[in-house]
Structure formats: structure tokens, C-alpha cells
């Protein structure tokens, strides 16, 4: 099992404001299928910046990026959006649920956007994901009526709805207490082991990082380990 899911070659990025500073240099690494990778480093070392480049949302960089062996350079905004929709699941520090929708609708949204399955099937799949994460009871509640820990689990269900090739997380436990952090970590662990899900999680939580299969450590815009 050494299919490359994600490969970064010579990624370089600089910020121009107020003075030109290179924030990422010589970033070369790849992630294989079903790896559970943590990116760690001190605050400001560029790990989040790297994640947003890898997520295709930030396109202002030099170097090359392959997701699922497909080059991401020179793609149009709409094409990148379609790739994010189909191949990448996101879990952020903040849950970003749409308050106007129920939990179930929030999970269904990317699925409906993909438009691969009928609305009925998407609903069924969304319920499956919610059941898997143990929050099926919340399905019909409004998104702003559930607790913080539960919201993060809803966000994970939403990330899973289109069976992405990789799940990316930006400090997914950063806003949670210890107990909820553990729940979220256990979910990730389970996804990696049971479902062979590839995960790339940015965190500064050493404890969290240590429990993953692989740690990429960053300092001053470079990978040091």
C-alpha cells in the first residue's frame, strides 16, 4: 500500500506584507494512502499556511502539488472547488456549520453539491456517518442547538460525506476540552484503522501528535523532521 495520495514538490511561499518574508521553503513530502499524519511545530512556523496550500484553497505559491496523482497547478477556481468537494474533507478548529440548517442538512450539503447520488441516498449516507460518530440523535436539531464537541463531530461527518481520499484538519481539537478532544482523536484513529482513511492533521498538541503514525515537524517554514 504505497499509493501516493498527496505529494508536495518544492513548495515555496512568501508573504509580501509588510516586507517580503519566505514563510515556506523546500517543502517536499508525500502522503500515502491510509496514513495518519500530524504536522506539528510552533506557532508561526507555517504549518497552517502549508495546510491551506495543500487544501487547494490557497493558490499563491511556487512549486508543485499533486492530489490523487493529479497536478493542482494551473487549475481554475471552479475546478479546484470540484476537487475539494470530491476528494478532500475538512475539519477546522471552528466547526463552521450553517446555523440555518439542521445537523443532517449540514452533513448533506457537500454531498448534494457533488450530485453523484440522489437526495434520498445522500440523506441515507449522511445518517450512516452520523450513526458511525454516535450523534444520529442530533440529526434533526438545528446546527446552533448542539454543543461544541458535538458540532465538531458533525463537522467530521460532513467531511466524510463524499468519501474523500484525504481528510485535512487544522487544529481540530484546538477549541475542545480534554474529553471532547479525546473523542475526536478516537474518531480519527478509528477512521484511519477501520476505514483506511488518509488523514493530515495540523496540530500543536504534542499528545495528539504522538499518537499518530507519522509526525512532520516544522520550524521556520521548513520541514525539520
Amino acid at each position: 500500500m504505497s499509493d501516493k495520495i498527496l505529494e508536495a514538490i518544492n513548495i515555496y511561499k512568501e508573504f509580501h506584507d509588510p516586507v517580503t518574508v519566505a514563510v515556506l521553503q523546500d517543502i517536499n513530502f508525500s502522503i500515502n494512502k491510509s496514513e495518519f499524519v500530524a504536522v506539528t511545530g510552533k506557532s508561526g512556523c507555517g504549518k497552517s499556511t502549508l495546510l491551506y496550500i495543500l487544501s487547494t484553497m490557497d493558490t499563491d505559491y511556487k512549486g508543485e502539488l499533486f492530489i490523487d496523482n493529479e497536478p493542482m497547478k494551473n487549475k481554475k477556481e471552479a475546478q479546484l472547488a470540484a476537487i475539494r468537494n470530491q476528494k478532500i474533507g475538512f475539519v477546522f478548529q471552528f466547526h463552521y456549520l450553517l446555523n440555518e440548517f439542521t445537523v443532517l442538512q449540514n452533513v448533506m450539503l457537500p454531498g448534494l453539491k457533488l450530485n453523484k447520488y440522489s437526495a434520498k441516498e445522500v440523506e441515507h449516507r449522511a445518517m450512516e456517518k452520523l450513526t458511525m460518530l454516535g450523534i444520529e440523535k442530533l440529526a434533526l436539531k438545528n446546527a446552533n442547538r448542539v454543543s461544541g464537541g458535538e458540532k465538531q463531530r458533525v463537522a467530521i461527518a460532513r467531511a466524510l460525506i463524499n468519501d474523500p481520499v484525504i481528510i485535512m484538519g487544522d487544529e481540530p481539537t484546538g477549541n475542545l476540552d480534554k474529553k471532547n478532544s479525546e473523542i475526536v482523536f478516537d474518531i480519527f484513529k478509528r477512521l484511519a484503522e477501520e476505514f483506511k482513511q488518509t488523514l493530515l492533521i495540523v496540530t500543536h498538541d504534542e499528545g495528539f501528535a504522538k499518537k499518530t503514525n507519522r509526525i512532520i515537524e516544522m520550524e521556520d517554514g521548513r520541514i525539520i523532521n
Partner: protein
Amino acid sequence: MNYKLLINIAKSLLLARWKQTLVAAIGVTFSISMFITLLSFMTGLNDLLDGLILNRTPHIRLYNEIKPNKDQPVNSTAEYKDHYNFIRSLKSGGTRQEIYNSAAVLQALKNDQRVLGYAPKIFAPVFFNDGSINIAGVINGIEVDAESSYFHFKDYIIEGTAADLNKVSNSIILGKGLAANLLADIGDIVQITTSQGEQFPLKVVGIFQTGIQDFDKAQSYASIVSVQKVLGKTSTYITDIQVKLKDVKTAPALALAYADLFHLDALDIKTANSQFETGSFIRTLISYAVGITLLIVAGFGIYNILNMMIFEKMDSIAILKATGFSGKDVKRIFLLIALSIGFFGGMIGLLAGLGLSAVIDQIPFTTASLPTVKTYPIHYNPLFYVIGAAFSLITTYLAGWFPSRKASKIDPVIIIRGK
């Protein structure tokens, strides 16, 4: 493209801020209903004012003008034919006012497909005798039926009936002002003196009022036969033919053709009453300008509300983009929001406009100069509603376009990292 999903999202965003949405929609409703009402009322008023003169004005009037003969003998002589001849002290010649061969002209008009109808007329200047006082006036000899059906003659009769002109021999219908001056009422006899000095008694069978004071003070109507009798002419004697066309726009061209064909003078409605068209045009222009201004103001309302909504929904937009909605999708969502405000606001506005017009249509409006008008005039024209609907959609689309573009350009990285 999954429009159903976009519509669903747009609907949820709309309903989440339903109070603001309502305010925006009411703005559109208000402006559309005012637009419709204003145009209907203004056009109604235009029609009324134009009708005051134009209803009674023939599209083409055929007559003989008293004027000097254009063909002077000196121009025909071989010697001076090619010269430019100045002739002084020329007098109007013996042209008669009578239309020659009137029966043939009428027959030709009857066969002309472009003509809706015609009414022959005799124009006879007379004096109305009131004791020792003579009041100058005019008797119009008319065919009552043709005059009524093509030139609304019946509408202006305020006492008596038009048909009595035919039933009662030697009868006359006086203008209101003229009747007052003569102290004449229905059933009275008035004496007239023709320009040839003949005296004749006529029986008053009705009184008319057009709303134009000078006209009502000098004019009167009698049947053609009566006037022929008064003037001592034969039954073919007429001085005017009033023609009503199917298409009023052809009047100037046709007038020229008739003048040439019948060797008569022809005056068309455009030349005779060009000031009315200018007035109507400017009033309509003002109504449109006011209506569109109202809509633009409503458009700014929508623009504000969408901008605010986008500011509030930054997070939602960011996550939509992160999970695979393209900038285009986001733009469509906000355009849908703007258009649905325009659509529903506009629809209700059209209905409200119709309602308001109907209410104005019921408000009493009586004025001495307009005997046929009882309520404020409203012109119901489906075109106004089509224009209103189109404008409501166009303005809301434009108002939504800039905020939508802004939403589509939101960078999710900045929003998400900013937390």
C-alpha cells in the same frame, strides 16, 4: 449544475433574515405599485386631455379654403411663362366653399380601405338674433349618426338628445354659453340671420357642453338638411368632409394624397394639433422618470441588505467554498436571493398598483368643463405591468450583482484562518 441545492441554500439564507428581506421586498413593492399607479393615472389624464380636443377632431378635414388662385393668367402666357412674376394686390377669387361633386368624393372615401368613417358637414357662419342684439356664431350642419359614432357628438349633449335633430325639423342644439347668452332653453325658438341676410327660426332641442368656453359660446349644431334649407342650397351642398382613419399615423401622408386627388384643401390632425402630442409625451416621460427613480432607490435598499447579509454570512460562504462550492455557485446563491426579493416584491407591487389604480378610478372627480367625466381617469394597460415586472427584476439583478460578486471573491483561507 445543481440549481435545486442553490435555491435551497438561498431560501434558507433569505428566511434566516426574514425581517430584512421583508423590508427590502416592501421597498420593491412600494416602488412598483407607485410606478403602475402613476403611469395608469398619468396616461388616463393624458387620454382625457387629448380626448377633449382630439376626439372631436377629424384625422383629415377636407374643405375649400378661401384664398387667391395660384394659377394667375400671367403665368400661363407664352411670353412670361418662364419669368418670375410678382403680382400685387391679388384678391381671393370666386372660390366657393362648397365641395364640388361631393357625392363622388364621399363614394371614393367609402371605398377606401384606410378610412374608418367620415362625416360630411356644413359650416355656416350666422347671427343669432336676441331682440336688437346680434350674436355672431356658427351653425354646423351635421349627420347626427356619423358625427356621434366617429366624433363622440352624443357625449357632449348635456340636455335633450342628439337624435332629435333628425326627428324635429328645423331644430338646433346650442352650446351652453350661447344658450345662456340667448336665454334659450329646450323648446324655445331662436332666430338666426345668415350671411346672405335671410332670417330663419330654429327650435332648440338640446344643449351641449365641450368644456372649451369659447367653443360653447359660439357653436351650434343642426342637421345637414336644416342648414341646407337655411342657406337655401341644394341637397348636395356640403362644405367640409371629416375623415376618421383606421391608423392616425397615416394622416399627414393621406391628407396630401386626398388634396391632390380631390383638388381640395386637406388638414391633418398632426399638423392641426401638434402641441397635444408634445404635452402627452412629456407627461409620460415624467411618469417613467419618477417610477424608475423609485425603483432605483429600492435597488439601493436591496444592495445594502445583501451587503449586510454577506458580511454576516462570511463564515457560511467560507465553508461553502471550502467544501466545494465555487465562486460562481456563491454568486448564483446571492443573485437568487436578490432576484427572489425582486420577483415577490414586484409581483405584490403589481397587484397593489392595480388595486390602487382601481381605488383612484372610484374617486369622484367632477368638473364643469368635462361633463362626461365622473371619476379620476385611469388607463389600464397591460404594457405598464410588463414594464413594471421587467424593471423590478432588472433593478434587483443589478442591485444584487455587486454584492454577489463580492461574496464570490471571498477568500475562505482568510476567513477560516482569522478565527
